[in-house]
């Protein structure tokens, strides 16, 4: 059997270039999702990785018991399970550290259920955690909460070919969950 080597080389080159462009898509910079809530101030804005391209922003509502919002944007043409779990773990550790820093406490997370949120036109089911605080300060301020709430969720922003992960930490009495979620834009 005679092999047409020109055709074989052409085919291999074509498919290698195709795969190369596909990988390049994941490295294409994202249009970062953000929060436009006036009470939350951006305190951190970082590029977490470039393959896939991940940017995260941290917003804080200033208070003794602050609200902390993390919005992470991942370049993908869909919301794959592996990306979700891999990036989510990373974002979880970022918001955990931010919570420890802002509350001056060690924390224990307990998953208690899920909570529905509407972010833009996206219906998102968020994991609902109780965060038990162990204050590092010997004399914690009077009336500070022992338990606060943490919510995690993700959705695919198809308009921009990117996935958005949202993590939100706040004392239960702050009560601005829906308001904060509605101000997240991709």
């Amino acid at each position, binding site marked *: *059997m005679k*092999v047409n080597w020109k*055709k074989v080389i*052409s*085919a291999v*080159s*074509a*498919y290698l*270039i*195709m795969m190369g*462009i*596909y*990988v*390049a*898509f*994941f490295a*294409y910079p994202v*249009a970062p999702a953000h929060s436009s809530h006036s009470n939350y101030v951006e305190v951190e804005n970082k590029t977490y990785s470039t393959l*896939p391209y991940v940017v995260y922003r941290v917003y804080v509502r200033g208070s003794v018991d602050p609200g902390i919002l993390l919005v992470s944007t991942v*370049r*993908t*043409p*869909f919301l*794959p*399970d*592996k*990306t979700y779990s*891999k990036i989510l773990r990373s974002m979880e550790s970022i918001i955990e550290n931010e919570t420890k820093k802002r509350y001056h406490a060690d924390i224990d997370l307990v998953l208690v259920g899920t909570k529905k949120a509407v972010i833009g036109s996206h219906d998102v089911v968020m994991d609902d955690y109780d965060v038990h605080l162990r204050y590092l300060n010997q004399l914690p301020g009077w009336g500070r909460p022992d338990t606060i709430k943490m919510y995690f969720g993700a959705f695919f922003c*198809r*308009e*921009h*070919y*990117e996935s958005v992960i949202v993590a939100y930490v706040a004392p239960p009495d702050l009560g601005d969950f829906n308001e904060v979620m509605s101000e997240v834009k991709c």
Partner: protein
Amino acid sequence: MDPAVLVLAATSVPVLGHNAYWLYREREVDLYYGVLSGIFTFIGAVLVAYGFPGSLIMPLAFGIIAIGGFHGFIKVKKRGKLVKGILFAALSMGIYLSGVFL
């Protein structure tokens, strides 16, 4: 439209180019599937913004090429066509099951 869609849609160009060129020269049946796969990739990439599941673009594009390989083998009984069919079927399944590189 987000510029990222152009990058994703550009994945179709080398496949379209290769298959269209060799189709012009040889008229083999599997090359028609290659052209179809390229067109599908382009349209699929654009349609993600309208709800088309992006996770299916590459598996389906390679799946179409795999079918072309098997069809070509049935028609001309060349072992290379069978290898092409099996290779692309495996790629298609592999990409679908692995969640695409990530």
